[in-house]
């Protein structure tokens, strides 16, 4: 392991394709050992950013350092520390899995006498040891994806950059890949991109959120989600509707919709907290206490899963990109 210092340092990174700006003034740093999720809708500039970090694209302005080595100034040194899996894991269909990984190991400067061991280790890690002699062209999408992952791992680099590692996989394969990434996160720094919120939630301690080529949020995932979860609530209550509405409106909830199911006399409600409410969680507590006090049966209260779009809109409302210092937005006092 190399000396201390950040694994990735991106400084004022911009990329322009002609007149289109894909990434604008992106600055962030990732410490060694972190597992970071790169989140954003399609077309937010995630792939472009990852390609710049991996050295496939040169930034129009700004720079990237991997373990202190500038990706454009010292490309060979910087690239040696990175295991990069491009989106959709492109491979040579005419090669066998073992041949391909051996070729990649040689290309990534794994010494000749360690190559065989490196290939079997990474196949073991990516759980493709049984496919060693299979032609890549005959593999299923899930296997190909894992060959791509094995390729990223073959030289045992300190940093893994994975572009949409679970795209196009079935739910079982997604679960496997998630487990694998969690396992790898113990020894490697990982930066992975996705447009699925749960993905980041399941795998990453920290999330970077991009929108329209700019960083709109940077912080621990749970803080990012809690913020959203508690804004919208579902209630299942038993009691007179008027009492219930009185109580809820009294603590500042806004009614979104309600329905009464006749058999048990239950009232189902959906409420939302206004943005001005400083502490929604305390309000939930207060509301439940009051409801119980008034003799209303509280059967279920649960927060709705935030959708990515909602998180985005909340984050973009909270921090207008133009007014924001990139890399410095913190959610609920979290330290990156």
């Amino acid at each position, binding site marked *: 392991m190399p000396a201390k210092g950040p694994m990735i340092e991106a400084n004022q990174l911009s990329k322009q*394709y002609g007149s289109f700006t894909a990434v604008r003034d992106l600055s962030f740093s990732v410490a060694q050992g972190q597992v970071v999720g790169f989140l954003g809708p399609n077309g937010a500039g995630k792939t472009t950013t990852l*390609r710049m970090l*991996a*050295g*496939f*694209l*040169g930034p129009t302005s700004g720079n990237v350092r991997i373990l202190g080595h500038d990706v454009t100034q010292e*490309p*060979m*040194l910087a*690239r*040696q520390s*990175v295991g*990069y899996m*491009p989106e*959709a894991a*492109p*491979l*040579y269909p*005419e*090669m066998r899995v073992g*041949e391909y990984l051996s*070729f*990649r190991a*040689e*290309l*990534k*400067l794994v010494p000749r006498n360690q190559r065989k061991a490196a290939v079997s280790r990474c196949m073991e890690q990516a759980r493709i040891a049984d496919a060693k002699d299979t032609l890549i062209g005959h593999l299923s999408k899930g296997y190909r994806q894992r060959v791509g992952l094995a*390729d990223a791992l073959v030289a045992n680099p300190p940093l893994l950059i994975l572009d949409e590692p679970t795209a196009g996989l079935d739910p079982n394969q997604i679960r496997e890949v998630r487990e694998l990434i969690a396992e790898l996160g113990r020894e490697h720094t990982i930066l992975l991109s996705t447009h699925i919120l749960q993905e980041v939630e399941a795998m990453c301690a920290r999330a970077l959120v991009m929108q329209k080529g700019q960083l709109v949020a940077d912080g621990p995932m749970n803080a990012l989600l809690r913020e959203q979860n508690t804004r919208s609530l579902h209630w299942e209550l038993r009691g007179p509707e008027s009492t219930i509405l009185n109580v809820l409106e009294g603590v500042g909830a806004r009614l979104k919709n309600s329905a009464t199911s006749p058999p048990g006399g239950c009232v189902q409600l959906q409420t939302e907290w206004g943005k001005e409410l400083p502490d929604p969680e305390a309000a939930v507590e207060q509301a439940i206490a009051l409801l119980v006090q008034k003799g209303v049966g509280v059967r279920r209260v649960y927060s709705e899963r935030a959708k990515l779009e909602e998180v985005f809109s909340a984050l973009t409302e909270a921090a207008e990109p133009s007014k924001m210092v990139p890399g410095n937005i913190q959610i609920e006092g979290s330290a990156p």
Partner: protein
Amino acid sequence: MTGFWAIYKREMLSLWVTPVAWILLVTFLLLQGGVFYSIVSHYSGAAELSFDNGPIEAYFGQGSIFLLVTLLLLCPALSMRLFSEERRSGTIESLLTAPVRALSIVLGKYLATLSTYILMWSPTLLYPFLLRDTGVVDGGVVFTSYLGLLLLGAAYLAVGTLMSALTQSQLSALMLTVLLQFGMFVLGVGEYIFDPGLLHSICSHVSMMSHMEEFSKGIIDLRRVVFDLSVVVLALFTTTEVVDSWRWS
């Protein structure tokens, strides 16, 4: 030059495990065999043979248009997929993020096609060997003829490598290379059209026909060697620049 050897080996594997090289090899050898057979049967019926005008010379040079036509198709077909396929399928991304320089990639790929080209010609070494039973074969002529073929192939494959880097479609790469080679071939014909002068000199310098004609007579003209090697260096240098420029597109 780290990575060169890995690229070279992979490219060779890629050429020979797919049917491309084998189909080319069979077609190529059938054509060459047919041409050689007809040349030999023609000379066996000839009344008189002069010293520097035998079947070997006819096979390699002296307007043996068949040889040139096969070269026109063989070289572009070998080089067409080098970079275009990598870019179409996206594997170029893995390649360019590995710690390997563009020059190593270009040389590895190019030399793999050149080696394949040499391998394809090697069975034809049998022809002069067969002729030794019936007459005298000038070893020097055989050597310079193959040198001429090597230089010509090296130049065309380098041009093909560049064309393959300029387009994402194999077919476009093939057509562009054929077009350029055919252009040089047609320019060479100009040698017989223009009166001696500047145009005549230009045409005779790039002419494939005069090129092989000279080499098949045992003449090694340094100008021909320099011309071919210049094409190789220029094309490969430009390819390296093109590969590097993809990062900044």
